[in-house]
């Protein structure tokens, strides 16, 4: 079975991009020291949203003095506004072998989702960084803002290449070692880490970003179409398991898969992360439309 990846032209498609205009990402609150943008931040200053008054202190911008209050009370007060800053978005698409398996590989969906979220973020004046990972993380694109970078990001996405095993822990450690602002970390993966959900949880301990998990699933993850005596070979580790497929075995497989999904959901809840399941065999835009139905996704 030969994987067919999306080309740049297929990825950077006008119809696809038009369909994304409606989407918005909301951060509950971003950190200080960001660039002015559209997300609420903890910083108070010169934003558009009025927050409070405070007594004038030397050095304050005279433009923020409320002269009406001074006329009535004879004291100087300045208007304090809530600063709206940008949300750094770090995209971590999985490029391990499992993402490239099959005729319609998950990586295509990962690319589309990455581009969609990048487009949304760049539209909101946020910065976007691209850090694909497999057995380790790569830095393809440090935080870039401005819509003009969308094309560059799309090119990077289309140039992603298959690597080996999934090692989310190593990749996240690598991310933590980089000096980046706190932002939104979007992990786009099947989450089939050989260490299981426990390994992912351990790896996330060092992560200080807000989290968005985009889990790429397909129908035969839950209901594999197998029968007879099979040798199953793990596409990443090359390990194998000989099985004789029986209804009972399939049932046990489904139980294990269901347990994995439950654990992942519990992890997301524990980490106050958002978990989104995207079926790679269905239309991505339609699924994202459902996701953004309330006007946006809050992270």
């Amino acid at each position, binding site marked *: 079975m030969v994987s067919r990846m999306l080309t740049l032209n297929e990825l950077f498609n006008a119809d696809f991009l038009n369909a994304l205009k409606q989407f918005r990402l909301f951060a509950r609150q971003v950190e200080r020291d960001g660039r002015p943008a559209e997300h609420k931040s903890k910083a108070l200053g010169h934003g558009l949203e009025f927050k409070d008054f405070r007594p004038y202190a030397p050095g304050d911008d005279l433009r923020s003095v409320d002269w009406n209050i001074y006329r009535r009370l004879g004291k100087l007060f300045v208007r304090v506004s809530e600063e709206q800053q940008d949300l750094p978005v770090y995209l971590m698409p999985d490029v391990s072998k499992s993402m490239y398996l099959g005729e319609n590989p998950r990586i295509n969906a990962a690319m589309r989702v990455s581009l969609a979220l990048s487009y949304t973020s760049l539209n909101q004046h946020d910065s976007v960084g691209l850090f694909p990972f497999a057995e380790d993380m790569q830095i393809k694109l440090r935080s870039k803002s401005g819509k003009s970078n969308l094309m560059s990001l799309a090119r990077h996405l289309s140039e992603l290449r298959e690597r080996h095993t999934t090692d989310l822990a190593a990749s996240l450690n690598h991310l933590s070692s980089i000096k980046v602002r706190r932002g939104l970390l979007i992990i786009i993966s099947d989450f089939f880490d050989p260490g299981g959900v426990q390994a992912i949880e351990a790896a996330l301990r060092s992560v200080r970003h807000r989290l968005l998990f985009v889990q790429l699933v397909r129908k035969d993850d839950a209901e594999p179409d197998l029968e007879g005596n099979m040798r199953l070979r793990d596409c990443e580790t090359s390990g194998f398991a*000989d099985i004789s497929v029986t209804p009972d075995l399939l049932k046990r497989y489904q139980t294990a898969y269901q347990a994995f999904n439950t654990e992942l959901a519990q992890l997301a809840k524990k980490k106050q992360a958002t978990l989104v399941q995207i079926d790679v065999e269905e239309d991505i835009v339609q699924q994202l439309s459902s996701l953004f139905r309330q006007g946006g996704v809050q992270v």
Partner: protein
Amino acid sequence: MTFLNISPLLTALGLLGLAGLLYLLQQLRVKHQEVQVPTLLFWQAAVQDSPARVFREKFHQLWAYLLILAICSLIWIAIAKPELTDDASGDSHYVLVLDGSAVALRDDFQRVKETLVDDVAKLPVDQRTVLWVGGETHTLLAPGEQSILLQRRLEGRVPEAAPSKINHQLELMAMANRKDQSTVAIIYGNVAVDESVLDRVSPKVAVFRAGSGKIVSGNAGIVSFGVGEPVSGSWDSVDALVQVGSDHNLNIAVEGLRFALDGSPLADIAISDAGNGVFMLRDLPAAGGLLEVTLADDDALAIDNVAKLRLPDRPFIRIALSPSLDGVLKTALQADRAVVLNTETPDIVIRKAGEVFSEQALATGATLFEFTPMAQQAPAFLFTYPEKEVTDFTLLAAVNDLGLQYIDAAGLATVAQQPIEVTARAGQQWSLSIWDELLSENFNFVQSRSFPIFMAAAVRWFSGAEMLRPYIAAGESLPADSIQSSASFVDEGGREITTLSASFTPAVAGSLQRNEADPLWASLLNEQVTMQADQKFQGASLGSPTITIMSLFSSNNLVTWIILLVIALAFLEWILFRRGRIP
């Protein structure tokens, strides 16, 4: 248990071979189809409780092995075709004999048939034969034939008007050579078996009786009926004898009998009662009529209440004897009561060769019997026969019928100094020419004791006079010289019988149609049939058979049960597979 298709040893070896082969198959590496999956995480969790078959692993799947071994072994055993044997069946061959003789007319024949059908269903198909023993014996159900055929073959079948042949049949069974297999004969019906026959057939044949009931007494019937030369010595009449038997000491008087000739009651016939149920009828006309005697009263069995017999047709033989032979032959011919010398309308013309005598009679069909000088005729006896009508066989029979075997041919040859030869040639009509010199004293032929016999036989043969048939009884051979050598008959059942010089035995009572003559009649005339209720005729006491072989477990059904078991095991395997208990 035995196996019909494969020997027990080979069956056992086959089972061992199967066990070994399946063991090896279990040990072989399963050929897996390789498939790439994104992760083994969930499969590894799933297969922990259900590992796949692997090479040379111990019997983790022992139940799967035992199950497939059981299925294959049962199929192998079914192929070997097992057959249950126990004390009841053993190696015996069962011959179930349905009595179809006139004796069975007094049985509840329908019930007997039902009993037979029930018993047949209980026996192994390869170990039983069903025979019909009536007027003739034939096989109703051969070994291997399905029981259902028997029911069809018994439909509409009724006892025949024939005496019992059961004793003869038992002796035939004893003579039949069955290797390592004894015979169990079960007789269905009340027919009697002679003690002496039981002694002779034992121990090869064990005889039992089934489906019998008590015989109701109260029967009388005609047990003998025949004719003979009349005491009066008259050529054209016969005397008849009738004997009536009864199983309850019934004395039948002459008033209890009805006699008829060609359907008309006999009148003016002297009937004498000789005692013990024997009656004599004197000087009945020997004119080919059908004599019938009937018991006036009804009783338990109707078929023996009537007997019929075709009387001989014996007109006087008219002979025209040439005066030149008067001195030699006249005395001998006049001594024969069958002969009348008649020169006007003779049946036979006797003269010397070259004489002009009774030419007109010869022209109208009279037979020529002439004497020719040795110088003119090489053979001593020369037959002339109509070529189209006569076969070699008929001619040979005619020579015998003429009584030539009584002639001292060697003595005649010595005197004649040449062989005494009998020759036949084709001609327009029957004639016989013998040497004239045989009439001379030198040959001592005329003076010999065989000469009157030869002349009597010759004139009877030439005239076509019927021989006297003393009786014709079903199942009884007629005296050899009382029937024509190659007579043909069609009996009551439509069967054509050609005697071909063999002893003639009509199988059943009834008419015997002849081609160009009035039908003969065979009567039952059997004491066994008439008086079977009499202790004297009941024969040996026979035990009841024990047929305990259950039909469900007969040889055929055993294979069926095995196949059902195989299906059940296959179903069990499917359930276990569905539940993941076996791979």
